[in-house]
Structure formats: C-alpha cells, structure tokens
C-alpha cells in the first residue's frame, strides 16, 4: 500500500543544522535501500507560499505567506510503500526519532495502483482491509 506522510515540525524558518541534514540524509538513503521510500522532499518557508480560497459565491481570496499557525505547517512529505498502516507507523517513528521533534500525519493514498490497494492481505486484520472502492477495482 502507498502512504503519504506529512511532516509538521512545529516550528518554522529554522534551517536544519548540518548534523540534522546528515542524519536525515542517511535515513532517506536507508529507506531507499529498503525499497520503502518512493518519493520525498522538504518544503521551503511558508513566506514563499500562499493560500488560495474559494467561497460559496465563487469568489477567490489569496493570502500570501508566511502563515502564523506554525504548529499546522507542513515541512515536508514522503510517499512510502508499506504493507500495513502499522508498518507505515514504524517507518514514521524512525523518521521522527531522527528529527527529534514534531509530528507526522500518515494517510493512505486514494489513487494507489491496483496492486497497492490489494496488498492488505486478508489475514484477519480487519482494520487493514482496503477501502471497498479500490478493492472492487483490483
């Protein structure tokens, strides 16, 4: 199955130290070697971004960054292959341990390839059953 993890460091505009960068680099390499990491990147400061909203009348509002609610700001993402949510959690723990702070949100991806949706093995783990829609497609 394919999961996206969204990392929220809880702070913003703090450049990672060289040591942190090296540790993350090594972790990324290890995960790539284990065949679990498909894609990852960090996001730059929210001051370089914007928020675009639409209201019920169809009117747009554009708000330039930076944004104040730093706790909710996504600092990076990873797309990983995992056999189960439990494995995604384990892999995320390793990442957070390296980072030493913040939180990650783990989400099962919607439009995963058919084999991904199918990979939740029906071995009595009810909570890991794929959603009906994808299962029907596979």
């Amino acid at each position, binding site marked *: 199955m394919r999961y996206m993890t969204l990392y929220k460091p809880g702070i913003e505009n703090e450049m990672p130290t060289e040591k942190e960068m090296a540790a993350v680099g090594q972790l990324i390499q290890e995960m790539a*070697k284990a065949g679990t990491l498909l894609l990852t990147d960090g996001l730059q400061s929210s001051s370089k971004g914007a928020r675009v909203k639409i209201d019920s009348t169809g009117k747009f509002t554009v708000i330039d960054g930076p944004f104040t609610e730093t706790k909710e700001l996504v600092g990076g993402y990873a797309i990983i292959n995992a056999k*189960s949510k*439990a*494995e995604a959690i384990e892999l995320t723990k390793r990442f957070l341990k390296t980072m030493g702070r913040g939180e990650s949100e783990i989400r099962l991806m919607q439009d995963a390839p058919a*084999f991904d949706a199918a*990979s939740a093995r029906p*071995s009595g783990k009810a909570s890991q059953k794929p959603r009906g829609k994808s*299962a029907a497609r596979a």
Partner: protein
Amino acid sequence: MTTSDTHRAIDAVWRIESAKLIAGLTRIVRDVGLAEDLAQDALLAALEKWPESGVPDNPGAWLMATAKHRAIDTFRRTERIERKHEELGHELESLQELAVADLDAALDDDIGDDLLRLVFMSCHPVLPREARTALTLRLLGGLTTDEIARAFLVPEATVAQRIVRAKRTLSERKIPFEVPRGPELAARLSSVLEVIYLVFNEGYTATAGDDLVRPALCEDALRLGRIVAELAPEEAEVHGLVALMEIQASRLRARTDPTGKAILLLDQDRGRWDQILIRRGLSALERAEKLRGANGPYALQAAIVACHARARTGAETDWRRIASLYDALAAVTPSPVVELNRAIAVAMAFGPAEGLKILDTLTLEPSLKGYHLLPAARGDLFEKLGRFDEARTEFERAAAMTRNARERELLLERSRAHSGDSPQ
C-alpha cells in the same frame, strides 16, 4: 496501545527487520535454518514481552540483542554436548570465540554484505526454482508461509515443506554464506534476478478477480529488486530489472477496465500510468546504461517499455527504436516469442508487409504451435494490408486456440467483421 495494536506493531517490525536479523545471524551461526529459528525465537519473546512493556524505542536492536543471547545459549549448549562427546571441533571453538567476543561488531558491521549473501544463498541454483522463490520471499521479503502459499495458490503445507527442504539442502550441501566472485557471479546473479522477476510476473499476470493477494507480489518483487539494486549497485542488469518492473508496474491501474477486462497497451489511458514509478524506472534504466550494461536482456526489455512510458500518446511511440531494441534483444536471447514481438514492432515502424515477412518465418516454429498470439498478429497485419480473407482465417484460428473466453470473443468479432468481404 491494545494487545492487538502491539501485535500489529510487532508484525510491522518483523517485516522491516527480519531479513537483516536473519542475515546477521546466518553469518555467525553459518546455518540459515538455525539463524531463522533464532530470529523466530526473538520474535516469540517480543510477542510475550511487548504487550506488557510496550514496543521498545529501538525494536530492531531489541530483537537483535535477544537473538544474540539465544545464539550464545545455543553455542554453550552445543559445546556441552560436544564436550560430552569429546569432539569439540575447532570450527565450533572459533565460532564460540566470535560469538562471545565480537558478536556486537559482527552483527552491526556490513549488514548490507550479509543481506546480499543471504540473497545469493536463498537463490542458489542447487535449490529447485519453487524453493528459491519461497525461501527468498520468506527470508528476504518477510512473508509468512501462509502468505506465500496463498500468493502462489498452493497449500501452506507444500510451501512449508519446500522451505524446510531448501534449508536442509543448503546445510547438507554446505553452501557457503558468501557473495560469489569472478565468473560464477554472472550466473548466480541471473538466478537471483530470475527469482525476483518470477515473483513479479506471478503478481503481474495474475488475472484480476477475487484474489487480492497475488497482485501484492508485484510490490514484494519491486521491494526485493530495489534492495538488491542498492546491495549490488555495480551490476547493470539489477538496475535493468528494477527499471523493467517499475515501468511495468506503472501501468497496473490502467491495464484493466472496471469489470476486470484487459485493456491493450495502446488503448490504455496514459493519464492513469503511475508517474512516480515511471520516473523511478527511467532513472534505474539510466543507471544501467551508465554502467554500460544496456545490452543485458533485462535492460533491453526495460528500454523497450521505457519507449512506451516516454510517449505521451500511442501515436508518439518511437517504433523504430523499439524495433531496433528487439533486434538487440533477439541477438542476446533469441526466442520465437521475442521474434514475434520484434515482428509487431517492425510492422509498426516499417509497415505491415515487413512485419509479416518475419511472422512468416515463425509459422513452422514448433514451440509456437498452439500459441494464439501468432495467428492473431498475422490476422492483424493481413487486415492492415487489406487482405481480409486471410485476416478472417487467422482470427478464426487464433480464436480456436485461446483459452481465454474474453479474448476468443474479441477475435471472433474481428473475424466476423470481414465475413462479408470478398477475396482479394
């Protein structure tokens, strides 16, 4: 955390750590069966302790440490028995020294090398093909015997027996725990790649249907392939195989319609192709090419599927390049099926008459007798040339050969389309 949460976490830790654990232990105890037993013991200990104590901060290290203690206990026990028999061998003595003095170092160093040794051992040609596959999935893929059995549609007892026998054979034949060198390496590596691709195809060609387990094999194979590619980064064909699998897998969700009916490559919605996997596949292919290994059979097949992956529409497909890649593939691994595919590519690149010339040479090929894709391809080319009578005959012949009902229907439909045409 509830007990079942903990069990799921343990499952996950096992999935992530078991191969490294077994590889490290095999180096120490020099017996893959014993190594797996020790690792399993550690797993049992975790199942006992973690629901109470919680999952440790570094679960991998916990399992390692526990297995190490079991290993030492086993050595001591064996040593006592050996002493009793006054047969204390040198080998065991040195193993014991290693075990006590350098166990930590032995386990922590070069875990990558150990994993690669384990890959070569599991795929050793001394084992029958099914055994290699089962053992590899079990030791390196972290799959349970039950999962392997369901994926390959055989009884669990059969898989269990294959694994037991395989481990016994490895031990009896004293297969060394090492990475082969020199001239042996190429043959041994191709056995490894064959096992991985076999797993992939088992998942890839599984008919879409009720069974949701088999397609997961594609994911297992991809993961194994990526692992081996990083363990043996200098081997071009490993990257070739990974490229081939990533790109083929990128089309998984596009190749069947909602009812499960197959959609041909050129009719697929390319917007549904998985761009992440395509990107990974193309970069793996680039790695193979940089190692000047673009002439291996996997890299060539990868280069062919890459041509399709790069084309934004079917019409943009570089058929000339595909035809020349098939020329190269036919030179490396000549086979009637490669020749058939080459003919189709040549027909697309240089016109149906050119393709037909190649197909004509195959009609007497004994191994293609009963292979419905040959008359189907001929029918297609006759049709393109306006030779409808011959096309109809070929489609009918193909329909009679195929065992797939849907395919038969499609072929008969194509043959009926020309039933009113007069001969040329």
